């Protein structure tokens, strides 16, 4: 009886643990919420380090932090007209140029590095 109860509790725990991961989601490619957790965390940490109000419970507020950061950094942007889907890319590009870490995928991608060179000046 005890064994059965324990088994059921563990299964329930397992189910509860898995539930948040089960749902699938959709978004425009490059949307902040669709990024790898590590990259999103790095963005939030770096925004917080520069005094931007980034750490909020929902993604929209982080998005506001991103927009504010890009606006304040506009003097470093060679190209200011870009698609919304590119906002995170420009932000990461700026952060890499400022020496922030946490963006290994981006730094390993030569196309991104070339594009970044065309978009952003060295701050």
């Amino acid at each position: 009886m005890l064994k059965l109860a324990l088994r059921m509790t563990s299964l329930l725990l397992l189910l509860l643990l898995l539930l948040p991961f089960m749902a699938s989601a959709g978004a425009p490619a490059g949307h902040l919420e669709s990024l790898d957790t590590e990259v999103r965390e790095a963005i939030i940490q770096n925004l917080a380090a520069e005094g931007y109000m980034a750490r909020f419970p929902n993604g929209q507020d982080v998005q506001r932090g991103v927009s504010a950061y890009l606006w304040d950094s506009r003097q470093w942007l060679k190209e200011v007209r870009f698609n919304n889907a590119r906002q995170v890319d420009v932000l990461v590009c700026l952060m890499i140029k400022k020496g922030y870490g946490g963006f290994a995928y981006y730094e390993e991608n030569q196309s991104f590095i070339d594009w970044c060179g065309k978009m952003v000046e060295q701050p």
Partner: protein
Amino acid sequence: MVPDKLPKTILLLMLSLLLTTTVAAEPLRVLVPEFIGKEPLSQHVRTSVYFELIKAFRAVDTPDKGAWILYGQQPLEQASHDAVLAAATWPSVRADLAVWGKAHQYADGVVVQLQLTLTPLLKKRQVRPELWAVSLNTKAGVQRFELDIPGQFYEFEPLLLNREAIVGFQDPQGMPLYSKRKGGSQIGRLGEVIRFYEIHEDGVLIATDGKKGWVRTRSLADRESEAISFSKGMVRLLRGDWRGAQRSFSQVLENSAIPQKLRIHSLLYLGLANEKGGGSGRQEFAAAYGLNRLDRTAAHYLLMSRVAEIARYQRQNKTAAMRQAQQRLAADLAATRILFDKNDQWYRRLAALVP
């Protein structure tokens, strides 16, 4: 009184719990870029295909982290797999596969040429359900044999869609959200990020911008095309949804007019889903190899199914049946010898299993 086996049960469950948290699969990432063609038709077609692909998922199916289904908002630089690979492997996208194509206006309808590209990022996933691995006890110890999925690019026959099948919105964003699957009232519109809760042919229950409601979807065509079935099958295979994959690839094979490469690969993927689902894919692998005896990929799967057969008998301690399976492996190795380089390590390791 605590039963003897209780500590073992607790340990096992704790271990599974730990494993689930540390080695959980990362979400599968699917990209549907903007189609090549005149705007806004290309965007409408992209959105229609996007919602059709969502039907490949069930909200609660396999114990993994779900999936991200991303739609591209910028046109591809050109209609090539290289251009799609560049868009899909862009660091903010990192898609494992992309479903893309061209769209042209044709009389009252739209001709869509669909293509499927699997990216190299697939091989970097921590958990790869599609990888076929068989372990065997041999005199040299436990040996593991692996086989990866064959294709990287697929091109499908053009698909004619009628005007009604095309979603009336350029982007998923802005589409109406209803309180009920049928009837009910409009309660809002789709935001940028949408989470899927229930997926049906005619509607998807989603949450977006703090609201939960239904998006009404239509079928892309009266009869599901092999391009859509194959793409759904691939998504399901990559997520370990074996039953769903079996259904999709069987649907592809129902069409007698599909090109040979697509038929062979559908047979291989159906066989793989059968094997992964606990059955045998032998019949499908033999049929694929039978269609082209010079197809090395089909030969790989045929041979691997023999290894799986030996492993099954080994687990059941059926020595005589295992010997017979070894003889069948020897016969298949001899028949496919010409397809492999004499130094092919995988083939040589298999040959070493024959006494």
